[in-house]
């Protein structure tokens, strides 16, 4: 499906002005827009990410006496949600459409991947089938929802998502197993089962967070970053951005607004579908509340806004913070306060409100601003965004 997106963007290039690719700027900012640079830099970050997240934080935690190292499954989970929010941000951050129904695509992909695994437990096919189902579902839902804007769009996507949730819970339980969902979903592993997903990639026992599952998710993440980067740096993506800024103007230029909004919606659903299928492979269960309930859509919104909607990989930081707080911080027991436990969502809500209020561009945007400030206040546009990249690299 990624090819289709890329060629679609290419087709538009011919009818548009060809030189509109980027903002110009310095050599460095041009470099940052190049596909191969972005992919190589992301790959480097993905290689060190589990080590930093699990082992280094674990060692720090041993010193200060708190278990902040996280569990070995966390890096893959972050990547899975990262893929979803990269797509979600194409819709929210670039096209300016706030969907409260993306759990529908996540969940339908997860369910269809789970069902498909009972016939053929091939992980690649599970991802393909899940993504396909999510795409086919996104088309009619998008076709109807896109006709309205603003709140009405949010409510429409929410109603479709909730209708699907209640269908899975009630009348559809012959297919979805109702309230119980599916558990113990087994995917074969890569290379016809030669590499099971919980096997380690390295023989070194200290690097136990580098599992086959992580490698699989990391490759999917690289593809997602590559596709996302291709889209936002193409004229097609520029139209998304223009739609987010002023829809009327885009219409006056003579472009078919409806078609571009629908494509943005479907593309974001494709990302959510990939993430849903990967989620099932990783967690080995799916349940209506996890997969289809509207709070799941809300979580995508939180991650995206937390990370920052202004850049391609910004939302991934949001996914990192969200999943880290949900899985690690919630288990931490502080000396004075005691166990954090279910307080994590409260803390998250407070952080979320603060971010929306004070840093509308999210964590990533705040870091970019901070880096620009440290770098000597009113530096040039190209200079001020450059440190943000290295900063982000260090955090990963």
């Amino acid at each position: 499906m990624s090819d289709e997106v890329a060629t679609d963007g290419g087709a538009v290039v011919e009818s548009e002005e060809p030189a509109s690719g980027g903002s110009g700027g310095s050599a460095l900012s041009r470099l940052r827009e190049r596909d191969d640079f972005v992919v190589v830099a992301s790959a480097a970050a993905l290689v060190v990410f589990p080590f930093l997240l699990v082992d280094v934080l674990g060692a720090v935690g041993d010193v200060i006496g708190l278990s902040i190292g996280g569990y070995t499954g966390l890096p893959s989970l972050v990547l899975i949600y990262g893929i979803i929010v990269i797509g979600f941000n194409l819709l929210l951050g670039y096209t300016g459409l706030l969907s409260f129904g993306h759990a529908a695509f996540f969940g339908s992909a997860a369910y269809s991947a789970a069902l498909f695994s009972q016939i053929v437990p091939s992980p690649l096919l599970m991802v393909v089938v899940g993504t396909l189902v999510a795409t086919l579902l996104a088309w009619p839902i998008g076709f109807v929802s896109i006709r309205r804007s603003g709140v009405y769009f949010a409510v429409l996507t929410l109603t479709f998502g909730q209708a699907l949730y209640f269908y899975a819970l009630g009348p559809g339980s012959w297919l979805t197993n109702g309230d119980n969902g599916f558990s113990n979903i087994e995917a074969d592993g890569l290379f016809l089962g030669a590499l099971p997903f919980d096997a380690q990639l390295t023989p070194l026992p200290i690097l136990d967070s580098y599992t086959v599952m992580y490698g699989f998710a990391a490759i999917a993440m690289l593809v997602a970053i590559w596709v996302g980067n291709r889209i936002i740096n193409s004229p097609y993506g520029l139209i998304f951005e223009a739609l987010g800024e002023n829809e009327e103007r885009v219409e006056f230029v003579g472009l078919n607004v409806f078609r571009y909004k629908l494509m943005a919606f479907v593309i974001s659903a494709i990302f959510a579908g990939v993430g849903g299928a990967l989620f099932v492979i990783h967690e080995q269960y799916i349940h209506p509340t996890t997969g289809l309930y509207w709070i799941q859509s809300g979580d995508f919104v939180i991650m995206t806004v937390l990370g920052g909607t202004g850049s391609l990989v910004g939302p991934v930081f949001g996914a990192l913070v969200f999943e880290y707080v949900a899985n690690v911080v919630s288990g931490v027991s502080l000396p004075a306060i005691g166990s954090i436990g279910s307080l994590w969502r409260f803390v998250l809500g407070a952080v979320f409100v603060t971010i929306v209020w004070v840093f509308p561009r999210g964590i990533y945007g705040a870091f970019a601003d901070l880096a620009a400030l440290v770098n000597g206040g009113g530096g040039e546009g190209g200079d001020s965004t450059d440190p943000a990249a290295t900063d982000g690299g260090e955090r990963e």
Partner: protein
Amino acid sequence: MLLQSEIASILLNGLQQGAIYALLGIGLTIILGTMEFLNLAHGALYLVGAYVGLIVFQETTLSNGFLYSAGITSIGFEGGFLAAIVLVPIVGFGLGLLMERFVAEPFYDRPETDQLLVTFGLALIVEETVKNVIGGNTFQSIAPSTLFGVNVSQPIQLPFVGLFPSWRLLIIVITFLVIGVTYLAIERTDFGLVVQAGTRDSEMVRLLGIKINRSYSLVFALGAALAAFAGLIGASIQTVSPQIGTDQALIPAFLTIVVGGAGSVRGAIAGGMVLGLIISAMTQTYSQWAQIVLYLFVALMLVFRPEGLFGTGEVGE
């Protein structure tokens, strides 16, 4: 073929559920209409109303409550629920004032997605606060057994309907009274005139020398009080748990104003009734499909009549 009594009970249950939806919808719609502010924390106010009602009811009525331990065993006519009826809207009103001042006001000039996001976060905070302070467990509904000395726990015999719980009948009366008073306040008073004018063109109202900012606070607080009151009524017929804020209040309230038309009080009442009747009819016939039919009805409504039953199709788009 449905029996006559079944149809009658569908209608009555629909009216009762619809009245709760209408209460929620009116609150949401006047805030949306007047300030063009989208309050995703509306359900949180319902949640607060339900829990405040629960606590007031327990503390004043039950034998383990505060009043009982203070030596007062009865405050006359089983006053616990009456006390809640008075206190809950006041709490809601106060919360509404605070929300308008500290949450809504800084966001009037921000994009509507920011408004959605910040109130969504606020709803999360309220729900989690309730979970952490009171616990995530479910409480039984808090219907009083007697009110004004009248026994309301027994079903009564109605013409055409047969036996119908008298408490539910009383709820219909009480909620319709509140809806009626609110409607009159908005349609017939000077305050309502300002609110309505503000819905059309708030800039013009300000130019006429009317302090619309104070009206904003009042509208917000009124909407919040209605939501809290709806929470109390809801808690008297359904179990109370931290999820009800979104499941039973926020989403139905949005659906209500979508059906009725954003910014219209009449629309919210009509929308609430339509949705209440759909839910009631589906629950009694094909209960598994009730929610799905409700959502699909609203989706169809949005596609074919986006301005709603009474809306102008301008607010919030």
